C-alpha cells in the first residue's frame, strides 16, 4: 500500500469515488480523514508502533495552540523541540544510540509531516493573517494519505482552500480523463521504467566487482552513474503523478514536484525543477530568512553578492542532510550545496567579466545551454553516489577504476548527456510543433488515450510477468 501498486491505486480511486458522493466539505473531509486512518492502520498493524508518531503530532499541536493563543515567545521555544524530536525519532547517527527508542516504530512519512508541522507553526507565529487550525484540520492536513508517504509538501492555505471550499473544484469528464491518464503514466514510470533502470544499475554495480576486462568495467561505471538519475526520477515522479491525480479526483490540487529537471541549464535551475516543494520550502524557511538576517548585519556592498552564495550553500547542505541520517548524506548535502554555490559564483564571475548584458547573451546561446545542461546532469549523477550507496559500495565502485579512468567516465557522461539531452529537447520541440486547431497533437486527448492505453498495457503485462511487488518508492524512507 505504501508503493505505486495496484492496491494503492485502487484504494485511492475508491476513496475518490466515495468522496465525490457529496459536494459537502464535511463529507469530503470525513472521507479523507477516514481513508487516511485506514491507510495508516493497514501499514502499521498495531497501535503501539504508532505511539511515537502520535507523540510527535501531539507536540506539534500543543505548540500550535500556544502560538495561536498569542503567548509571547512560543514560536522561538517551540521550533527547537519539534526539530529535535524529529531528529531523535529518525535516529540520526550523530546522536548517542542509547537515547533512542529501542522498539521498531512507524516512521513512514515522518519527514513530510515534519515539514508540514513546522510550516503551520512558522506561518501561525509569523503574525500575518490570523487563522485558527483546529485539531481535525491539523490531523487532516498532516496525515492526508495522498501526501503522507513521499509528499509533495503542500502549504496549509492551499490545502484548506480546496479541502474546505463550499463548492469543490470542477471535475468533468475531461478532468477525470486527464487524471486517469496521469495515474497510468505514473504507474508506468514506477512499475516499468524504474524497474528497468534499477535493473541496469544493479547489474552495472555487480559487474564492477567482477573480473571483467577494463573496457567492460568502464562501461559498467558509465551505466552505473548515468542510469540512477533516471531511475530516481521515474520512481519518485511516477509516484507523485499518481498521488497528484488521486488528490485531484478528490478535489484537492497538490503542488507539482517536478518540471522536466533534466532540461535544466544550470544546477540552480535544476533545483527549481526537481523536488520543487522541498526546495521551495527550504528557500522560504531557510534561504530567505538567513539571507535577510545576514544582509542586516553585513552592509559591505562588495560582500553582499557572496552572502547569497553562502545562503545557497547552507540551504542545499540541509537539503542533502534531510535525505538521510548517515554521514553519506552529509557529503551529499555538501555536494548539493557546493554545486549551487559554485553555480552562483560562476554567474557572478561571468557577469563581472562580461557585463550583465554579455552574460545574458551567453546564457541564451544554444551551445552554451547544451553543455551547461550536460554538466548539470553529470554533476547530479556524480553526487547521487552518496545518495544511493553506503561507504562500502562507494569504496568498491571508486576503487574498481583508477582516478584517470573515472575522470574519463565523467567526461564521457558530460559529453553524452550534452548531446543526448540536446537531441531530446530538439525532438520534443519538433513533436510539439505538430499542431491541430486545439493545440499540439501530442497533448490532444486522442494522443493521450493512445499512449495511456499502450503504457497501461505494458505496465500491467510487466507486473503480471514479473510477479514482483511494486518497487518501493525511494523517497518514502526519508
Amino acid at each position, binding site marked *: 500500500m505504501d508503493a505505486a501498486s495496484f492496491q494503492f491505486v485502487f484504494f485511492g480511486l475508491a476513496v475518490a469515488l466515495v468522496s465525490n458522493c457529496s459536494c459537502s466539505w464535511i463529507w469530503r473531509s470525513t472521507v479523507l480523514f477516514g481513508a487516511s486512518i485506514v491507510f495508516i492502520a493497514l501499514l502499521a498493524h498495531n497501535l503501539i508502533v504508532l505511539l511515537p508518531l502520535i507523540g510527535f503530532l501531539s507536540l506539534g499541536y500543543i505548540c500550535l495552540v500556544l502560538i495561536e493563543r498569542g503567548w509571547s515567545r512560543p514560536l522561538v521555544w517551540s521550533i527547537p523541540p519539534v526539530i529535535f524530536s524529529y531528529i531523535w525519532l529518525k535516529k540520526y547517527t550523530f546522536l548517542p544510540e542509547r537515547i533512542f527508542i529501542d522498539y521498531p516504530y512507524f516512521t513512514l512519512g515522518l519527514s513530510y509531516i515534519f515539514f508540514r508541522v513546522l510550516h503551520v507553526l512558522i506561518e501561525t507565529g509569523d503574525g500575518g493573517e490570523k487563522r485558527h487550525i483546529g485539531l481535525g484540520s491539523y490531523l487532516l492536513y498532516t496525515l492526508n494519505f495522498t501526501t503522507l508517504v513521499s509528499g509533495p509538501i503542500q502549504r496549509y492555505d492551499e490545502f484548506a482552500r480546496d479541502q474546505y471550499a463550499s463548492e469543490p473544484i470542477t471535475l468533468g469528464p475531461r478532468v477525470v480523463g486527464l487524471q486517469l491518464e496521469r495515474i497510468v503514466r505514473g504507474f508506468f514510470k514506477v512499475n516499468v521504467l524504474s524497474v528497468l533502470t534499477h535493473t541496469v544499475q544493479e547489474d552495472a554495480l555487480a559487474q564492477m566487482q567482477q573480473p571483467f576486462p577494463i573496457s567492460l568495467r568502464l562501461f559498467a561505471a558509465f551505466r552505473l552513474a548515468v542510469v540512477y538519475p533516471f531511475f530516481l526520477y521515474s520512481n519518485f515522479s511516477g509516484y507523485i503523478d499518481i498521488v497528484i491525480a488521486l488528490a485531484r479526483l478528490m478535489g484537492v490540487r497538490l503542488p507539482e514536484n*517536478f518540471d522536466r529537471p533534466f532540461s535544466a541549464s544550470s544546477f540552480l535551475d535544476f533545483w527549481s525543477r526537481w523536488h520543487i516543494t522541498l526546495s521551495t520550502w527550504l528557500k522560504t524557511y531557510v534561504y530567505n530568512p538567513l539571507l535577510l538576517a545576514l544582509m542586516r548585519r553585513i552592509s559591505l556592498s562588495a560582500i553582499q553578492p557572496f552572502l547569497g552564495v553562502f545562503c545557497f550553500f547552507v540551504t542545499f547542505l540541509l537539503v542533502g542532510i534531510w535525505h538521510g541520517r548517515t554521514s553519506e548524506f552529509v557529503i551529499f548535502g555538501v555536494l548539493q550545496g557546493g554545486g549551487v554555490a559554485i553555480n552562483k559564483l560562476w554567474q557572478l564571475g561571468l557577469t563581472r567579466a562580461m557585463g550583465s548584458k554579455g552574460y545574458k547573451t551567453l546564457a541564451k546561446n544554444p551551445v552554451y545551454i547544451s553543455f551547461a545542461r550536460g554538466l548539470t546532469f553529470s554533476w547530479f549523477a556524480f553526487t547521487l553516489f552518496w545518495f544511493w550507496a553506503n561507504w562500502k559500495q562507494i569504496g568498491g565502485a571508486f576503487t574498481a577504476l583508477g582516478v584517470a579512468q573515472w575522470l574519463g567516465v565523467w567526461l564521457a557522461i558530460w559529453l553524452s548527456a550534452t548531446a543526448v539531452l540536446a537531441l531530446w529537447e530538439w525532438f520534443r520541440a519538433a513533436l510539439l510543433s505538430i499542431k491541430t486547431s486545439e493545440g499540439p497533437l501530442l497533448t490532444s486527448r486522442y494522443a493521450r488515450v493512445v499512449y495511456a492505453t499502450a503504457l497501461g498495457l505494458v505496465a500491467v503485462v510487466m507486473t503480471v510477468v514479473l510477479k514482483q511487488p511494486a518497487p518501493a518508492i525511494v523517497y518514502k524512507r526519508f
Partner: protein
Amino acid sequence: MTESSTEGLEEKKLPRRDWILLPVLGLTTAVLLVCSTELIALRIYALSRTGGEDCMVLNSSSKTLGGIPNSVCWEKIPEGKLTEYRFNNSGYRSDTDFGPKLPGTFRIVVIGSSFVVGARVPIEEAFATRLSPELSQLTGQKVEIVNEGMAGAAAYPSIVALRFKDALAAKPDMILRIVTPWDIQNQSASIPTSNRNTAPPPQESRVAEFISRVLHHPWRAAFMLRHVLYESQSQYVKSFLMGGDSHYNAGFLRAEPDAEWKKQLLRFDSDDAGIEERVKAAGVPLVVVFLPLRAQAAMISMGEWPAEFDPFKLDNELRSIITSHGGIYIDILPDFRNIPNPEQGYYPVEGHLNARGHAIIARLLTKELTSGAVPALRVSAQPQSAQEYGK
C-alpha cells in the same frame, strides 16, 4: 507551467463524438499492440512442433523408459537453435553405438538428467562430449565418454537406479554422476502414464474458461518480455528468489531448506547409499558432481545474496551425504565466484545450459577431475586460469 500541468484544459466540454471515439481508440490501440507484439515474438522466438521427447518413451505403460533406439528427432525451443536428437541402438543420445572398451582407454560413464543429455544444444556442444578431448589432451591417455544421460521422466532417480546396470555393464573405469536440483526435486516423482498431459480440464463456466484460457495461454510476447528481463543478472535472481520459475521453487537456495526439500534430501541419501553399495561391489569408482541452476550460479558470481538464502547450502548437504557413504564428491560451485556473468551460460527462461554453459562446465569438470580427486586422471599442472571460463 510544470510538466504535467493541465490548467486551461479543464473547463472545456467534451464533444459528444468523443464518448464513442476515445474508447474505440483505446481498444484499437490495445488490440494492435497485443497482436503486433505477439506476431513479432512468434517470429523471433519460434518453437518447433516436435521435440526431443518425441523420440523417447516416457510413460510407465511401456516396457522401457528412455530413448527409442535408432531414432532421430528435431527440436527448436524459443531461445535456442534447431537441434537434432539422435538416439543410438541403446536408446541413449549419441551419434555412435556403444561398443566394448578398447584397450588403453579410460572409460567414463556419465549418468544424470537433461544437463548430461545436452538438452537444447547439439550433442557435440554438450559438456559430456567436450570432456573426452579435453581430458585426453590433459592426461595424455585416451579418455572415452559414454553418455548415459536421460531426460524427462526417464531421468527420475527411481528410473536411474533401475538403469544403473547399464552403467556397470559398460565396464567403466569410473562413473560420473551429475546431480542437479531437478534430480533432488524429483526424487520421489512417479512416472506419468502418458508422454503428454492428458488430464481432463476442470469444469468452468464459459466466461471463466475464456479468462482462464487467456491467462494461461503461453503468450510468446510474455515469453519475449521474460527473456529480455531475465537477461539481467540482478532481475533474474530477484525474480527467482521471490518465487522460483515454472520448474522450481527457490526452496533449495534457502539457508534453511523447506520441509519438502529436506524430505527429498532424505530420499536422495537413501538412494545414494544403494548406488554406492553397487559400485563398491563392482569395484568402480563413483564421482558425484553437483551442477548449479542459473540463479544459483549468478548468486555465487555476484557474491551477495539475502541473508535467508545460501547458494552453497544444497552443495554442502550433498557433499556430506556422498562422503558419508564413502563416495567421491567434487565441488565446482566455488569456481563460479571467478566467472563473470555465468548466468549467460543458461537459457534465460528455459533454464538449461546453452553452448557457453556446457563449455564452462566441461572446463570446470576437467579441472576438478584432474586435480587429484580421481588418482587415475591426476595431472600436475592445471591448464587454465579461472577467468578463462567466462570467455
